């Protein structure tokens, strides 16, 4: 069975046709529990998320700030396994019909086996992967298997990426391009830097792929600001923090659904 890269492409194209940015939500699998994580994905989609990235928790999340580190830690202490991540993707996709990507570090996939991982993710209905510590020059094997199984390879670009390198990265990527709004790890920020708009412009000059902006966005006003220049707005830590701050799981699910609703309004106010 082929993965859902086409669903990802048509979803982002539909948002563009509606003259708005897409809302992309990130939630770690296994947080607060595997079933709770699946419910959280359903909640953000019910609130208005167009695409969901499911995190595969890692013991050493060097690109994540304290909020996602805490969630990963809870998930790993709970014993989350790759089979649980696949179940999260499958059940979330079957329940919502939206494109579901996996975001993780490279070692878990390297260890699990690239063919095994891509085949299982495609079979579960996944749409692709974001692998922020797998640079383009090390990605040939991954892309071969991702292409074979109909999965998108979403690369991250950063404000420090030079133009020639942006061209190399976007030529190798598919689905969309993840533009990091600033130099730093994941986490909410008071403002999303002006660097983001400049990076989106430089990235667009190299590709027709949608360019979506992540890192730091946590509220509707920021989402609207980013939607003014990007094809998609990616929100992670703010959802995780809403779950962490809630007194119980039901309240957490209500909070992420409500936040997704606010952000979905934001991405329509460009």
């Amino acid at each position, binding site marked *: 069975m082929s993965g859902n890269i086409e669903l990802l492409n048509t979803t982002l194209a539909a948002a563009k046709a509606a003259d708005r940015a897409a809302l992309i939500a990130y939630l770690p699998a296994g947080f607060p529990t595997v079933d709770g994580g699946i419910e959280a994905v359903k909640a953000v989609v019910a609130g208005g998320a167009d695409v969901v990235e499911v995190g595969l928790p890692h*013991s*050493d*999340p060097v690109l994540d700030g304290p909020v996602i580190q805490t969630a990963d830690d809870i998930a790993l202490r709970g014993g989350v396994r790759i089979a649980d991540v696949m179940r999260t993707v499958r059940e979330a996709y079957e329940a919502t019909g939206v494109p579901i990507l996996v975001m993780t570090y490279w070692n878990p996939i390297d260890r699990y086996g690239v063919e095994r991982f891509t085949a299982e993710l495609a079979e579960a209905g996944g749409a692709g992967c974001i692998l922020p510590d797998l*640079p383009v020059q090390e990605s040939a094997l991954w892309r071969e298997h991702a292409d074979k199984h109909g999965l998108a390879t979403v*690369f*991250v670009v950063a404000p420090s990426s030079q133009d020639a390198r942006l061209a190399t990265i976007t030529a190798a990527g598919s689905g969309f391009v993840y533009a990091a709004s600033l*130099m*730093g790890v994941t986490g909410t920020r008071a403002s999303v830097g002006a660097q983001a708009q400049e990076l989106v412009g430089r990235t667009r000059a190299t590709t027709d792929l949608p360019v979506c902006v992540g890192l730091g966005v946590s509220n509707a006003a920021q989402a609207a600001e980013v939607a003014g220049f990007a094809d998609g707005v990616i929100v992670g830590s703010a959802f995780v923090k809403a779950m962490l701050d809630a007194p119980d799981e039901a309240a957490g699910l209500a909070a992420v659904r409500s936040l997704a609703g606010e952000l979905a309004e934001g991405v329509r106010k460009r």
Partner: protein
Amino acid sequence: MTSEFFIPDPEGLIPSAEGYFGAYGGKFIPEALVAAVDEVAVEYDKAKADPAFAAELNELMVNYTGRPSALTEVPRFAEHAGGARIFLKREDLNHTGSHKINNVLGQALLTKRMGKTRVIAETGAGQHGVATATACALFGLDCTIYMGEIDTQRQALNVARMRMLGAEVVAVKSGSRTLKDAINEAFRDWVANVDRTHYLFGTVAGPHPFPAMVRDFHRVIGVEARRQLLERAGRLPDAAVACVGGGSNAIGLFHAFIPDEGVRLVGCEPAGHGVETGEHAATLTAGEPGILHGSRSYVLQDDEGQITEPYSISAGLDYPGIGPEHSYLKDVGRGEYRAVTDDAAMQALRLLSRTEGIIPAIESAHALAGALELGKELGKDGLILVNLSGRGDKDMDTAARYFGLYDTDAVVEADADSDRAEIEGDAK
């Protein structure tokens, strides 16, 4: 003796242009760091070709570090090693008390050449942190050191030294609260502050060019020792022995001997409470290839690629990874790696102290314990070179508790045992 102390690998064949030692190495880094890591590689290549860089580093190595370091024969210690002759390469006598200063001075000069004003570093035992804080004081650079919270406790003396030198020391509370987590936190800082910050990486791991560059700055250890031993013993050693955490002092000792096929290169990994207990940091003995901290190498991990928490009494060896060149040397059979327990290392520490009047670091004591075993295997005609990578002052609190040396302790083995349990309890 020549006045040249910066002696980069003359072969230039390994690693490849992409930073691979066979199947190991590479650059597995986030896009945000690609430009900075590439800048380090370009600047290091320029520096290697610039006689002014070598001249400045050589001057520092002679007049600041105190190179060449001595080679000391230890016959009373060697009596416990089957009668083999043992020589110690005295990196403990370098300024700041370990081999770490060799690499730090090289990268500090590079930091200046790149026009950066701030340095960050990780440290386990605190020796790399102290050396880095020292170089930052010398060159007027801002300095932040990341250190696992457990290590700040067991190496409190070095925390005080770093602060005395003007560095900010950040106790890292995530994960296993040891060296691995200090590196994670340093990477997070680097991503956010890369414009003005150089990450002065302390071992031969990390993304290319760090494994090759840090090795080059430490090659002087083996080059000097080889020449000194030929003068003193009239032949090459049967074995060159070093402790291995990330592997910087070991690669520094081994590298000059790689072409000498008769010289066994023996790395001593921390077996902690014993490899069979699961409480160890013996990466090459018990690990599998994977990616950690920017390169492919052997890693202690589970079947789904989660890094497992290491353990060693030695903060400097308490790391679940290893430099990629060691993984390569293991796979091609040129390097031999064996595991040494906490207890064997502590016994060797006390033995060297009492037979030779030299108190080694607990890290280096792993190599000494390995040498005691090797000596028995080689017999009376054996000749062993050991890298004494650091001095043990920083470890006196751990050692005093282990052996029951404080006045408040009843100096009986039973109490020493309970202290040991307490220390080890803290370490987990």
